[in-house]
């Protein structure tokens, strides 16, 4: 098998210092292959959010390396980190984080705006992403006027807009009822299967975790058990 897309070695993250220091991750190793859907599960305080933040390059580890596509991410400048997060990653959050006042289209094209795309390109790609999620008729609506499921689909459209290689989803169905949650899950796994986009899902939901290729169970900052794939 080819070298993994994301490779984590001896990852440690300590918050604070001195006697009050808290070690959230205690030397963790993890490989995520191209096109894989990985669920990070564990109880709260197990370090799964910390791991996702580190993988998503939102934070830097205290010790250890994260290699993304063969590049040691600790060597990247702030500018390169920003560009990587903008173009390689997509984010889906439990609480949507949509700008309630802005239109659906403006919300979806925010990453493109940050990347510096022209208005024409933003509109074209935004509409395409919305069409993919069957929301193109809602493009002009304000984000606030949508239902929960629609909002989460807007968030997925936003995560897709830059054609990312990895989508980080933090409790993507946490705020949705079972039926809508199921639809959102279907969309995410469909993207994973058909477009080869990696999924890194942080969740409490065992059903969601079970649909992933593999679950990484964290306990007290270490991988407790995992279903190994052929290395």
């Amino acid at each position, binding site marked *: 098998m080819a070298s993994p897309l994301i490779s984590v070695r001896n990852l440690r993250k300590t918050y604070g210092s001195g006697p009050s220091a808290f070690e959230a991750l205690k030397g963790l190793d993890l490989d995520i292959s191209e096109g894989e859907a990985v669920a990070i599960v564990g109880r709260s305080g197990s370090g799964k959010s910390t791991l996702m*933040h580190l993988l*998503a390059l*939102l*934070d830097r580890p205290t010790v250890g390396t994260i290699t993304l596509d063969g590049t040691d991410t600790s060597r990247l400048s*702030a*500018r390169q*980190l*920003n*560009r*990587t*997060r*903008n*173009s390689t990653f997509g*984010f889906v*959050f*439990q*609480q949507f*984080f949509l*700008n309630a*006042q802005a239109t659906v289209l403006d919300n979806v094209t*925010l*990453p493109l*705006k*940050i*990347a*510096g795309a*022209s208005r024409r390109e933003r509109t074209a790609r935004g509409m395409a992403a919305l069409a993919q999620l069957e929301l193109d008729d809602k493009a002009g609506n304000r984000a606030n006027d949508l239902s929960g499921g629609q909002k989460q689909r807007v968030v997925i459209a936003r995560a897709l807009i830059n054609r990312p290689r990895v989508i980080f989803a933090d409790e993507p169905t946490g705020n949705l009822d079972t039926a809508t949650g199921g639809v959102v899950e279907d969309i995410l796994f469909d993207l994973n299967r058909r477009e080869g986009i990696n999924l890194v899902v942080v969740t409490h939901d065992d059903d969601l975790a079970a649909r992933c290729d593999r679950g990484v169970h964290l306990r007290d900052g270490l991988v407790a058990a995992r279903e190994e794939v052929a290395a």
Partner: protein
Amino acid sequence: MRAVDIVGTAFRNAFRAKLRTSLTVLAIFIGAFTLSVTNGLGTGINRYIDDTVASVGVDDVMTVTKASDDEAAGDGPAEYDPDRIEADGPPGTTAVALTDDDIDTIADVAGVLEIEPVKDVAVDYVRHDGGDRYTLAVSQFVPGMEVELTAGDQVDLDADDPQLVLPEDYLEPLELGGAGDALGRTVELAVTDGTGTQVTTEATVVGVAEPGVIAMAGAIPNDALTEALYDLQSTGAPESETTRYGEASVWFDAGAGEEATQALQDRLADAGYTAVTLEEQLGTITAVIDAIVLVLNGFAVIALIAAGIGIVNTLFMAVQERTREVGLMKAMGLSNGRVFSLFSIEAVVIGLVGSALGALVAIGVGQLVGGVSGELLPDLPGLTLLAFEPVTVAAVVLGVMAIAFLAGNLPALRASRQDPISSLRYE
């Protein structure tokens, strides 16, 4: 993120909390309006003074008087000086007269191109066609001087026949008809000669002057008329009386620069004379106006600083409100610098809107005031009370935007330093 998108987003963000932003804009508006009005007042009055300069004299002439060694009032009685004569000013003001010797001395000072003693002519009355008699002050015309005329021409200094420009308000009493009708008419002027006899001479009206402010209220004669009147007035007077002048006009090379002018003034001072250029005479007035405007501007700036604190407050609230939004944008790769620009430009937008509105309303008020100031201040015809120089208005707007930018720095810095993880954390 493109610059145009940053500005556009900042613009939209500024008006997301409409009431809050409007109140901050209002505070800026009040400051900018006050600043614009005070500046407009200064510009208007100074411009009015500048406009009237031409009718007072020309800029290559200085007025020379004999330096008086006046002792300060309260130091006991001043010693008698036989050359002391009445001078303009409060009753009792006197000046030391210039004699023909003085005129020759001044003429010899290097840099003096020409000297003309100012011949004081006291006209007893003016009369037209045997009608009623009216008092009339006569001033001296200096070449290059532009009296604002309603009709006719300036007096011809080289003409041999006596001419004069009459103030407009003499037309009706003298029954000269309209301004156009008065031209070419002959009026009778009377002076008292040295023996106490009243004698008359005639002059042709060549122009009708608009009432002015700093401009002399009286009639302006040409040289021929001044000579005629002075000769009549001097007839029978002792020699010492006729060769004494209150002041003299000295022509100099204005193009030689301020230093040369100052040097000439110094040389005249060394010779015992006081020389004042027109610019200096007006300079005192404009300096006072500038000082008043400066003080008023000071108050306006205080108001603007208070408004600036309002911007700080508004933006801190906005940063607080948009914590998650900022965190999200940072997670999506927006750099700290761009976050900083987003918020500081939002502050500049508030400043721009407030100051542009303030300046526009000030200009509007200027138009309104301009419409009624003619009735409020009938003695100052031609005065635009509030005048606006594009440069000054632009400076006010840009200045307010700069203050707003500085005010926005603190909240913008806080926003740019936000940690995306803690911003996006939820309980």
